[in-house]
Each structure stands twice: as C-alpha cells, then as structure tokens.
C-alpha cells in the first residue's frame, strides 16, 4: 500500500509544532515519545503500522478548533481518530501528520427520554450510549461488532452498520445531529433534536466521510425502546444455494427480520470449536434469523419463517425457547472473528455488499479463488442486507503471503462490483480499498466526490491518503472547460 510521501518540511518543524500543540493542550494531552506513540501506530487494520508525527488528545471543542486553525495556517495534516477500531485503516497515522485522538471526549451530555434522544461527546462508545439509557428500557440501535470499544464519532465517520441494520438502519438513519470542527477551525452544527434540515443535508454528507471533511466533537442520536421480546431460529442447509433461497423467500414473503446472518461451513466449524454453541456440523450453511417485537408478532413470524425454511430445504431447525438459548445461537456468530483467529495466524476481513440473489454465485467464486490462491477462507455474511465478510486466512510470517491474501481480497471485491454490488458495506474504504475505487467509479464520479471535499478542506489537510487513490488539487477540480455557447442538439425536442 503506497501512502503519500511524508513532507520532510513538516517533519523538520516537529519541535515547533509540538510547542504549538502544548500551548493549546496542556500536560499529557500531547504525546511525543516513541514508546507512547506506538499505542497509536495502527487501527483495526493490523497489517499496517506507522508512527504519527505527534498525538494530541484535546478535551474541548475549543481546543480542537484551535488545533485545526493552527494546522490550517501552518499546513500541517491531521488524522482524526476515535477508538482506533476501524477495519480499513482510516485512522492509520502518517509520519507528517498529527493524530488527533478524541478519546477524552467521553461524556454523555444529555439524555432526553421524551424526545428519545441522547446528546454525547464523540468519543463515547457505541455501547456506552445504550448503557446510559437501558435502565429505562431504551437502546441505541446500530450495533457494530466492536460496539464495546468503538466510539460514536467513529461510527458516524464510517457510517457503521451491525447485525440489526436490516430492520433498524445504519448509523446515518439513527443520527440526528453533530457538532463538527472544520479544517478552518470553524465550529458548525448540522441537525439537532429535530428532523431534516433547511438546507443541504450536510449531516448526511458528513456521515460516512471517513474523517476527510471535519472532526466530529458532539453527536445527537435517536434512541428506541427495546422490543418486548426477541427469538431466533437456527437453520441448517445442505448447500449455499438453498440457504440463499431461504433468505430470498423470507424477504419475498414481506418479512424483515431484526437480524439475518449466514455462515458457511468453515465458519461454522471454527466457531463451534471455539464457543460450543451447539451448531450442526453436517450442514454446508447456517442461518440465524432473529425476529423481535411483541410476543404475539414474534410467535406468528417464527411460524412463518419455520415454514419457509422447511420449504426451501432446511435439514436442521431449532427455535430458541429462552433468552439464554437465543444468546447461545448468537454466541458463535458474534465470536466468528476471534474463532477464525484461533485457526490461522492472521486473517483479512473483507466487506463487500452484493445483491442477495447473487449470494450462491459469489460464494462459489470465492471458493474457486481460494483454491487458486491456495488460501483458506471462512464466510460470515449479513445475509439480510447482502453484506459479505469473507475472512481470508494467511500467515504474515510467510514471505509474500500478506500480498497474496490482499490480492485474493481485491479479486473478491472486484467480483462483488461485477455482480452489481459495492466494495464496502460498512467497514469503509480507508487505505484498504482505496486503490480499488476505480473499479466502481469513473474519474468523473471521483472528481465530484472530491469537489465536496474541496468545499470542506481545500488544502487536503484532513486524513490525506485515505479513500481516494488520487487527490486532485482543488483549483484543478474547479476549472471548467467551456464549450461553444450555441444550442448543439437539434435532436432534443424543444417547445
């Protein structure tokens, strides 16, 4: 992975920059020693590491504003960082950039049950939001698997999903407002405790912008009352095709489950060996279908899903009879990543989304590629919304194997796009998929995205080297070729 060449001029000014940061953030909020910087040398994409120029941990929005203003004035780059759990390298440090950590923004500011909102600083963890309101029976719906550690600010930067996004939406559908510091140091607010905006939807634009548009310091999210009850079915199939048919038939019957997850045989075996959830080992594919709502609705839908599963050829079927059993069903799926980590020294987690009806085709293609590359793969899949997580198993100590695994992953993602899907469903582009952007987008598509970037950060100081393979200078993007001014289209009907 090629990163932009560090600016030697900025590195030479390190002492001066540190001094300026210490004038804004006192004491241990400015980290300069190598040993301490090492704690920030990577994010959830473990294969890539690097030391930042310096780490700054501000505590107030005003400090963030002062830092950005200084950096804008002195052409110093910024890498924003939440909890550092991102899987695509979005928070990978740069040698000539300040890593701006939001870890100290950890306070819940307001809980408003009547308006069903929580206002919190951006470093509060995803689970922290739910924990703040669960005594009253509420929760924050998006639940990425890293929810115990990941920050809500990071969730917004990545537009995180989770197993319940099929029914309850992604981060973008559950955030009402943010406070953001622009690269200029200006503090802006998009949205609030109300819906929609009176202008362009900048809240929507900031969500999923991977730290390229601004630094989020405060968020307002909506909370929901927990469903009365939830039950799950564990359904085994003899083939990937029959499992995929079942998924399509459930959706086709007008049922939107709270969650619908699929695992292939290698994933089933790895997780069963690890957590002993009681998964059947003689099936090729396993579905977990969770239904939530009032008991009478859940019972009704369980019956219907049960019937659909039988019709589509299920060979194994279990329905959770208690909350404990439901949690056991999930325990395997929720531990799929560490379970795979046990059977292989290293793994890469991919994140394409595909149209649901292409599932079996894509799984077959992955199997083919697995043979070609000589690398094992286990598949877990948010089947309900077509989001595939192939885990490619490799050993980084074997020379060339990381590269091989990366090439394998890239081939999978290219195939996802080929069948009508996309490069990333919830993990973000970061550095990991940056160089594949051209597979999905034309040069003009990418330039229009970058024009948005230019409106927020004209000097490209925020998180450079991420998301876009080439960053065009804003002046160049603004230039327009003027054609002749006469009506050149005799064939367009005019009235």
């Amino acid at each position: 992975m090629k990163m932009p060449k560090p600016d030697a001029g900025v590195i030479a000014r390190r002492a001066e920059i540190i001094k300026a940061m210490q004038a804004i953030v006192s004491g241990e909020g400015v980290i300069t020693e190598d040993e301490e910087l090492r704690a920030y040398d990577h994010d959830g994409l473990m294969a890539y590491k690097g030391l930042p120029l310096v780490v700054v941990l501000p505590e107030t929005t005003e400090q963030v504003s002062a830092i950005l203003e200084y950096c804008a004035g002195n052409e110093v780059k910024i890498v924003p960082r939440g909890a550092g759990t991102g899987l695509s390298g979005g928070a990978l440090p740069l040698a000539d950039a300040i890593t701006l950590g939001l870890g100290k923004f950890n306070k819940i500011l307001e809980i408003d049950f009547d308006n069903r909102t929580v206002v919190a600083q951006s470093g509060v963890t995803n689970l922290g939001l739910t924990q703040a309101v669960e005594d009253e029976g509420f929760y924050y719906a998006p639940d990425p698997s890293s929810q115990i550690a990941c920050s809500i600010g990071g969730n917004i930067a990545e537009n995180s999903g989770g197993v319940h996004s099929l029914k309850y939406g992604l981060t973008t559908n559950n955030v009402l407002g943010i406070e953001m510091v622009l690269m200029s140091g200006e503090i802006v607010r998009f949205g609030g405790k109300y819906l929609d905006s009176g202008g362009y939807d900048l809240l929507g634009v900031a969500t999923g912008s991977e730290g390229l548009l601004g630094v989020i310091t405060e968020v307002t999210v909506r909370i929901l009352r927990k469903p009365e009850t939830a039950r799950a079915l564990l359904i085994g199939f003899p083939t990937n095709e029959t499992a995929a048919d079942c998924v399509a038939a459930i959706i086709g019957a007008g049922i939107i489950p709270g969650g619908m997850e699929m695992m292939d045989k290698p994933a089933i075996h790895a997780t069963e060996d690890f957590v002993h959830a009681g998964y059947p080992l003689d099936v090729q594919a396993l579905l977990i279908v969770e239904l939530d709502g009032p008991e009478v609705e859940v019972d009704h839908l369980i019956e219907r899903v049960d019937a659909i599963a039988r019709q589509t050829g299920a060979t194994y079927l279990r329905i959770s009879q208690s909350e404990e059993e439901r949690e056991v069903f999930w325990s395997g799926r929720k531990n799929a990543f560490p379970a795979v980590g046990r059977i292989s020294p290293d793994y890469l987690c991919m994140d394409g989304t595909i149209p649901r009806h292409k599932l079996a085709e894509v799984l077959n293609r992955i199997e083919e590629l697995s043979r070609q590359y000589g690398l094992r793969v286990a598949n877990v899949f948010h089947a309900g919304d077509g989001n595939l997580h192939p885990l490619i198993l490799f050993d980084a100590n074997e020379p060339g194997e990381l590269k091989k695994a990366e090439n394998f992953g890239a081939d999978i993602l290219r195939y996802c796009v080929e069948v009508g899907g996309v490069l990333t469903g919830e993990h973000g582009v970061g550095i990991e998929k940056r160089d594949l952007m051209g597979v999905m987008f034309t040069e003009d598509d990418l330039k229009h995205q970058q024009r948005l970037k230019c409106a927020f950060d004209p000097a490209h100081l925020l998180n450079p080297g991420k998301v876009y393979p080439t960053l065009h200078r804003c002046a160049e993007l603004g230039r327009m070729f003027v054609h002749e001014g006469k009506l050149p289209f005799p064939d367009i009907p005019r009235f």
Partner: protein
Amino acid sequence: MSETLKPETAEQVLDAVKWAAASESPLAVRGQGSKDAFGRAVEADHTLDLSGLSGICCYEPNELFMTAGAATTLAEIEAALRQNNQQMAFEPADLGVLLGGEEEAGTIGGAIACNLAGPRRIKAGAARDHFLGFNAVSGRGETFKSGGTVVKNVTGFDLSKLIAGSFGTLAVMTEVTFKVLPAPEKTRTVLVLGLSDQDAMKAMAKALGSSHEVSGAAHLPEAAAKVSKVSHVAGAGRSVTAIRVEGPGPSVEHRCRALTALLRESGGIEELHSENSALLWREICDVRLLDGDGGNEGGGGRQVWRLSVSPMNGAGVAAKLTGLSGASVFYDWGGGLIWLAMDAEPDAGHEKVRQAVKFAGGHATLVRAGADVRNRVPVFEPQTGALRELTARIKEGFDPKGILNPGRMVEGV
C-alpha cells in the same frame, strides 16, 4: 428567448446542461412541475423538462429496490409496488393540492429533490434514507453517479444525501435507485380525544417511547379535526390525537390494545380500522387538514409554513404563533412537525416564525405563498457564517456557473 428543452435520454440531458453551462443560460429543472411553487422562484431563461426520462428500469421485489428514470411518476411506481405488496416506506407527501395543483402528480426525482417524507418519517425516515444511488449531470456538464442498488454501502462519500433535498440546484438526476419495502399487512389507528396540545405532546411521547413500534403520531386540534373527511374524526367535537400501528394482523391488534391501555387515562379512546385509518393518514401526510384551507386549490391565498422542531417543544412553538392572523396548526411526527396556515401577509410573518423555531431548535420552511413573497422572504431556514459559506462552496463545486435552479433555495446560490 425562452425555450423548453425536453431531452429523451441521459445523453441529451448532458448536451443540454453542457450548452447551458457554456452559454451561462440558467435552467429551471422540472419533472412534472407539481412542486414549481415550492421554494423560491427560479430565475431562468429556459426550462429543462425531464418528463421524457420516465419509466421503471429495474424492479426486483426480493432485492427491495427499484431503479427508475428520474421523471417516472410516483403514480406509476406506486402501482407497480402495490402489485407486489410493497411500498416506498418514506410515504412521500403529495403536496399537489396544497400547492394549488392536481392530486397524484409528481415524480420520484421531485420527491427526492425535495426530500419528501410522510408521517412514517419518525420510524422509517425521509426520501434521503431510502435513496440508494443515482446517475446525474452536474452543473459542470459532466455525468456522474453515486451509490448503488444495495442498502449497505459506504464506498466513497454519500452523495445521495447531498442530492436529496437539494431542489435540483446541484445536479440533474437522470436515473435513481431507491429502497422499497413490504407494505404492512394491517394498519390501525388509536384515537385519543379531547387532549390539549401540550397533553397531546406528552401522550404521543408516551406512545413513541413504548415498544409498540408506532408508525405515525399526529395531533389535530379541534379546528383541524373538523376538516377531516373521516366522520369519527370530524364529528369528535374535540381535538383528536392519532397513533398508528402497522404490521402483521395479530401484532397490530395486540399493540392497539396495549396502546389503548397506555393512553386510556389521557382521554377518551376510539379506534380506526382499514379505510378510515388510511384516509386519515393520507390527509395528514398530504396536509389536507389546515383549517381555513377549505379544500380550495391553493387554500384561498393563505400562507403555509412547515416547522421541524424537537417534538416536546411542538405545542410551545405553536403557542408563540397564535398572534399571526388566522393562524391554525396541526402536528405530525409526535409534535416535531408543525403545519401552520395563516392569512397572507406581505412578509409571511417570517420573523415571528423564525423566532419561535429558534426557541426550540429546528427549522422552518415557507411551503406556500405567492411568488413575490417567496422571493422576498427566505423560504428555507436562513444560514449564517461557516454554514452559509459551506453551502455556497458546495454549489460552486457542482454548479460553478449557477445554471441549475439558481436561487431556488437561497438567493444568489
């Protein structure tokens, strides 16, 4: 010279916009024109009529999406969805009659460009939440796309959000892809009668804060209730607070019972079933319950505002508006959406309205007023400082010559 250009293909749209950019000739971008009177009046020499870009290109019910030409009528889309028991869950409001036009007009591109929503906004979101991807021509005269056909997609910036609600000021959509969802098997509405506005906010918060998955919560003060064509509502002789639940049959019955028990102490309870329930929510969605509108096309010249505020502040905000001559309101979104009608004033009472919104946090839009008023008074919430500059820079990036619906949202942008 004023012409209407009527391209039949995306390529012809590109040609037309290229020409407009080169000759710096502003275009009024139009689907069917059903919302021409929404927003500021566009000062454009020419009209770009997209009605030729119509038709469903791809509809796969099991994949829960549809791709269609930007000017495909909502009527055509809804008919196709009905055949498969599906719907656009964002329930786009039909503002036709409110704006003095026809019922059942409008296109999907228009619904997205105005970021329409309905009572289900509180549960399912607005057009922005269902808009998955598009092909478009920006004001630079360049074709670009964003998004895709799948719901879970974080590849690059989410330009769909930028385009939804941009009123055609950044790009001309040629083809759009949006999410579709199963239509509910059953719908029922619990009515609570006789609540004051303030008590209604509390009752709706109770319902929305329950686990009963309420998909609509509206409050009609007595004057608004009287306008309804649903006899139970019109004849109540009191205010009516409506709580909607949707879903599988047994679940809807269960939740109606639970909500009735929850709200019984608030006031008298009634229930609306199938057709009456559907009719009432249609009236709420399409803003047909403003007292004094009398079903007149254009409401006899009365002006209409839409205020989006934090729900519990709804009644408080409305109370600050009673000084406006002939003011009448009703509430949707659990109190978070206030529809206000008032006798026409040269300034549409905008300072009073903005002041009231400011107190609660939110924004107000002047949805109906004469063109002269809409050009004099900011139609959308005025922006200041960094926010205003950001908006201008985004417009500059996508439409540097200012040829797409110039001034539709903000004067000079």
